[in-house]
């Protein structure tokens, strides 16, 4: 079956990504940087010294992490790859991505562990600024070991008419994941935030906030969370409409076994009578009928569950 090869494919993909990466950092070593025309890529600490204006985005003087400044339209996809390789390593990054007016970029960011048993720590504080009319499609992949602790904390600022598609996918969950995402949308900007993952033996806390600050802003938050093997997942999602704007929150959880727990807390805050914000939330288990149906197509129980879960995450 094709699914048996997923792990190998992922490992190969990780290797390819690290080879392709425009910014590649292992542990806290000096990064390997591959510049692209029209884009300036630096370690954050160098950017802090070189550009005074970056200080308003970095909360404090950075030690590690990347600075990417997109000044001209790139011709290819931008890749970043940040990995853990050493036992008990602690990685704290401050990343800043700035995309100038009307430029369109695709970013594939991978954060992973190179070995499953490192007991590592990865914290990333990211700021992403999309200037007027800028468009960003960001695929953010996380793949961790069972004992890792991971804390991504990302903030997106979308200026007038900017557009964001942010897909955060957890391929392999850490022991603890504490994730914060904040999106602030200015006039006529729009964002799709998709957070999806299958969590096993993990404690996961997700907090995502979408602020529709100015007129014409619109955004959708979509969560697809799968709990397996004693996982505890809690997700608190909020849309705050401060002006005439539209927002939708779609949170869905799927429990694979009885030992896991999912808690979804959607919240809508409306501060403008012209805003339209809606939400839907549901948590379900694997349908026994669907499982038996797939088994009667020749898939064993594990393969059938995988197919149902993959379908749920893609939905």
């Amino acid at each position: 079956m094709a699914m048996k090869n997923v792990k190998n494919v992922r490992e190969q993909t990780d290797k390819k990504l690290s080879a392709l990466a425009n910014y590649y950092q292992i542990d806290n070593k000096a990064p390997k940087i591959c510049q692209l025309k029209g884009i300036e890529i630096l370690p954050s600490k160098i950017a802090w010294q070189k550009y005074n204006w970056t200080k308003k985005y970095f909360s404090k003087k950075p030690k590690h992490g990347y600075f990417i400044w997109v000044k001209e339209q790139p011709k290819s996809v931008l890749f970043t790859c940040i990995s853990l390789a050493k036992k008990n390593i602690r990685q704290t990054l401050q990343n800043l991505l700035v995309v100038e007016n009307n430029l369109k970029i695709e970013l594939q960011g991978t954060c992973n562990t190179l070995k499953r048993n490192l007991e590592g720590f990865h914290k990333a504080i990211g700021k992403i600024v999309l200037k007027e009319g800028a468009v960003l499609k960001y695929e953010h992949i996380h793949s961790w070991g069972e004992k890792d602790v991971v804390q991504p904390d990302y903030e997106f600022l979308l200026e007038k008419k900017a557009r964001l598609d942010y897909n955060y996918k957890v391929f392999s969950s850490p022991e603890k994941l504490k994730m914060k995402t904040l999106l602030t949308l200015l006039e006529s900007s729009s964002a799709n935030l998709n957070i999806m993952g299958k969590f096993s033996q993990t404690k996961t806390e997700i907090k995502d906030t979408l602020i529709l600050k100015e007129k014409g802003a619109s955004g959708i938050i979509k969560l697809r969370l799968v709990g397996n093997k004693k996982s505890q997942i809690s997700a608190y999602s909020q849309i705050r409409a401060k002006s005439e704007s539209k927002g939708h929150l779609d949170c869905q959880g799927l429990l694979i076994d009885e030992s896991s727990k999912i808690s979804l807390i959607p919240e809508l805050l409306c501060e403008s009578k012209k805003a339209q914000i809606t939400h839907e939330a549901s948590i379900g288990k694997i349908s026994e009928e669907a499982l038996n149906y797939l088994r009667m197509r020749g898939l064993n129980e594990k393969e059938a569950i995988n197919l149902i879960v993959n379908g749920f995450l893609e939905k």
Partner: protein
Amino acid sequence: MLLEIKNLRARKDNKEILKGINLGIKERETQALLGPNASGKSTLAQVILGNPKYKISQGKILFRGKDITKLFPEKRVKSGIVLAWQNPPAIKGVKLSQLLEEISVFKGSISTFFRFQKIGFQLINREVNVDLSGGERKMSELLQVLALKPKLVIFDEIDSGLDLRKIKEVAELIKKELLAKNISVLLITHSGEILKFLRPQITNVIVDGKIICKEKNYKKVLKTIKKYGYEKCKKCQRANR
């Protein structure tokens, strides 16, 4: 004998549904199973395929001489029995093409194979059993059946909810892809509409969890049921004579 069912009794939630079924299907044979609502037709199909929802309390199921009564559903499918469901459940987010790739025994060539099938081409990019019309659902089941290269196919109400033109279309496909390739078929049907296109060699009637009639002339059975209903079959009990 390809499939042999001996004195099969099965229950669901402590309610006995099958009350001593005896049925034999030979290789290259087409049989029909007719019966009123809630007579046990679909249950029999599900029990043959090993749905764990049903518990077998007595009897045996043999396939190609091997006892499969306790096998997992996936093992039964691999040995060659496939069921086309009456009401298949939705598998959201999974395209039919993905499912076919996963289950197909024709590795690597399944998409190409189905692209040549006029009807399948429209379906393979849709989610499995999500928002499909009655006809599309039946066709999706048929495509999955073909992908599994079966030796025996059980069609559970393949003709229900279809107009006569569609039934003929489905029947032609069954003829071309299964009967012409000497694959055995059991047609479970309430209305019996499809039988005139596929002409089963034996027609069985099930009432209240028991097969009470086995008849070679399907027209005779259909005529009797149409004229007098299943009450007449209960009185006749041809299988028990």
